[in-house]
């Protein structure tokens, strides 16, 4: 199987969208699922959510921020280049049903992971209010796409350059304060954001689903590095998840386990940057990218 990049787009500074030929994965991918990929023979395996699957073009869409060596290498690939290995679709798909009113929340690049889920909720008849947040206006992604599938979209930025100034959790608190009836909250993004959302909805007694993204190796249940504590019980995010009841997640443990290889991740990235001077992290240098 050859996983050829058929289209590459720069969505925002350091955030890329790749459409990759992967007929079998495209045929079976559902909202909430992910792939594990490897860029080079010496590379590591990393999980990425499937943002979209096109069964006619036989492609899947991956959106990511180049924050580590593997994502930097992935971002350096161009159209017609090949991704070494892609395994998927992995994990349980999002349960599709009419939940009533759903508030769907994403932080940062999490918006990419939220898009298929919101699309699925909407298709199943739910009313969806989507909240997306980012550090600033430039980093807000997929706003038109999410607007198209949501009943309402609210954006917010840390610096107030788009929408209100603040965090997605502030918006959620406002909605609850205004006594909006919410049947379910779905959140995906950085751990502190999901933890904050979970805290709010626990108090408000609103069912909340989060999609977790711990460190993974094989992605098939074989290694257990992605284990998370859910209501005191160990689960493997790769095969038991990635979605879990937010109120049952041990956030402190998850945060701690995510930091396992911070030092090595930096060594890897620094060594790669030193070796490959082309990667100066400046979007304006990415000549072949269609904005």
């Amino acid at each position, binding site marked *: 199987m050859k996983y050829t990049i058929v289209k590459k787009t720069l969505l925002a500074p350091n955030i890329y969208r790749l459409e990759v030929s992967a007929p079998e994965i495209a045929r079976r991918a559902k909202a909430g699922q992910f792939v594990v990929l490897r860029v080079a023979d010496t590379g590591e395996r990393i999980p990425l959510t499937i943002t979209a699957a096109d069964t006619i073009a036989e492609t899947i869409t991956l959106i990511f921020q180049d924050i580590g060596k593997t994502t930097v290498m992935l971002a350096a690939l161009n159209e017609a280049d090949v991704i070494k290995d892609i395994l998927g679709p*992995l994990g349980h798909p999002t349960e599709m049903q009419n939940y009533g009113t759903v508030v769907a929340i994403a932080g940062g690049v999490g918006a990419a992971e939220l898009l298929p889920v919101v699309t699925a909720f909407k298709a199943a008849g739910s009313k969806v209010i989507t909240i997306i947040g980012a550090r600033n206006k430039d980093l807000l992604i997929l706003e038109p796409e999410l607007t198209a599938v949501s009943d309402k979209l609210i954006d917010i930025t840390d610096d107030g350059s788009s929408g209100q100034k603040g965090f997605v959790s502030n918006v959620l608190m406002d909605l609850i304060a205004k006594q909006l009836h919410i049947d379910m909250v779905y959140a995906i993004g950085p751990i502190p954001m999901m933890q904050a959302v979970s805290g709010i909805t626990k108090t408000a007694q609103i069912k909340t689903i989060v999609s977790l993204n711990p460190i993974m190796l094989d992605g098939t249940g074989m290694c257990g590095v992605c284990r998370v504590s859910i209501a005191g019980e*160990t689960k493997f995010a790769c095969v038991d998840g990635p979605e879990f009841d937010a109120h049952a997640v041990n956030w402190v443990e998850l945060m701690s386990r995510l930091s396992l290889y911070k030092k*090595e991740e930096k060594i890897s990235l620094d060594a790669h940057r030193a070796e490959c001077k082309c990667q100066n992290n400046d979007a304006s240098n990415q000549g072949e990218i269609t904005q």
Partner: protein
Amino acid sequence: MSTVSKGPSSDKRMPMGERHPAERAKDFNEVGRGYTPEQAIQEARRCLQCKKPTCVSGCPVEINIPAFIKQIAESAPLKASSVLREKSTLPGVCGRVCPQEDQCEKTCILAPKGAAIGIGALERFAADAERKQSAENSLSKNISPKTAHAKNAHHGGKIAIIGSGPAGLTCAGDLAKKGFTVTVFESLHALGGVLRYGIPEFRLPRTVLEQELDTLRGLGVSFELNCLIGRTKTIADLFADNFLAIFVGTGAGLPSFLKIPGENLNNIFSANEFLVRINLMHANQFPKFDTPVYVGKNVAVIGGGNVAMDAARTALRLGAETVTIVYRRTEAEMPARAEEIHHAHEEGVQFKFLSAPEQFISDEKGAVQSIECSAMELGAPDNTGRRRPQVIADSRFLIPADMAIVAIGSSPNPVLPSLTTGLTTNAAGHIIVDKNFMTSLPGVFAGGDIVSGETVIQAMGMGKRAARCIIDHLADGRD
């Protein structure tokens, strides 16, 4: 009773040379050096060439042991290797990792005298001779093993093998030899299953595995990587794609944990995770390879099987100052091969017996700092015949460890069974098969650790018998 023919035997077994423990514990090169040709011939000549060989009855894949040994005695190791290949898809692997002392060598007629023939070492010798020859051939004549057997006619229809571990590879090889068009589906990016991700290179060099895979390619077997059956494709998809029968050999890929407090602290690994990082992802070569691995100063490995020994010896090779096996029974009850325990001792692995972890204790950063254990004593035998360990009251003590590896076994990988409607499993998650290795789904067979068993050779034996059953099943269908 076997008829024993007289051979020019000596009553001592030829030992196989090994690298010095201090030297080998620093790298991932193979421990055993293998017999020299002279040693092999001398050992092979000890074989009594029994008319009714008892050794063969101890071999799960029914190798004609006296016949291959005879060829070695007659200085024809390549012919010996051909004899092996009649029955075994993976002789180079078996010669290294089979527990011969519990199988063929146990039933060798010389075993009661404590001088069983070194069947494993001889098997390895013959397989290695073949590998060297084939490497030379491809260099000198530019004939790759891929084309060597390409004339193999495919007339028997398509068979799918799920999982490229020992069970799947054996089943694939036997079916390909019978003319079937065999495709092996593997979820990882590299082939071999536990032979790739589990067994360390110092016990099984990857060149040996590559050679066995090349032989299969030569038989016309094709391989599809990155394909998780159940997710990427389903069993139903495979039948729709005209596969006539399917063999499931997905292995015991779900690591067990102790289910005690603190188990998810940082720097606590399943043996699977630790070994996958090293064997599959080459974390020992970080940052040349991108996957990192933590290496503690004081490493505790919990468990007493071969995987525990592999993990402990790997941790030593990564530079851990102390590596301690923590086991709740005594050395006598350890399920690991005697040879592996011996090698671990030699290399400096320490053993803490009669110790059962009760909880992992955290440092201020959320990483493991020590393991609180209970001291144990042995009571009455349990259903495995081993004396059951029981806790001594008020005996808790601490084992300092900044890294812990849990190697207490694994259970069947649930991905395929849970996603395949109508595929019946037992309470432990094993796929249930009938005496013909057929599952509850017609045309779907299973073998290896997903069904039962725990060693490479047991899995191979099941793969082999399942191949025969698949052929019979398809022949019946044509009547």
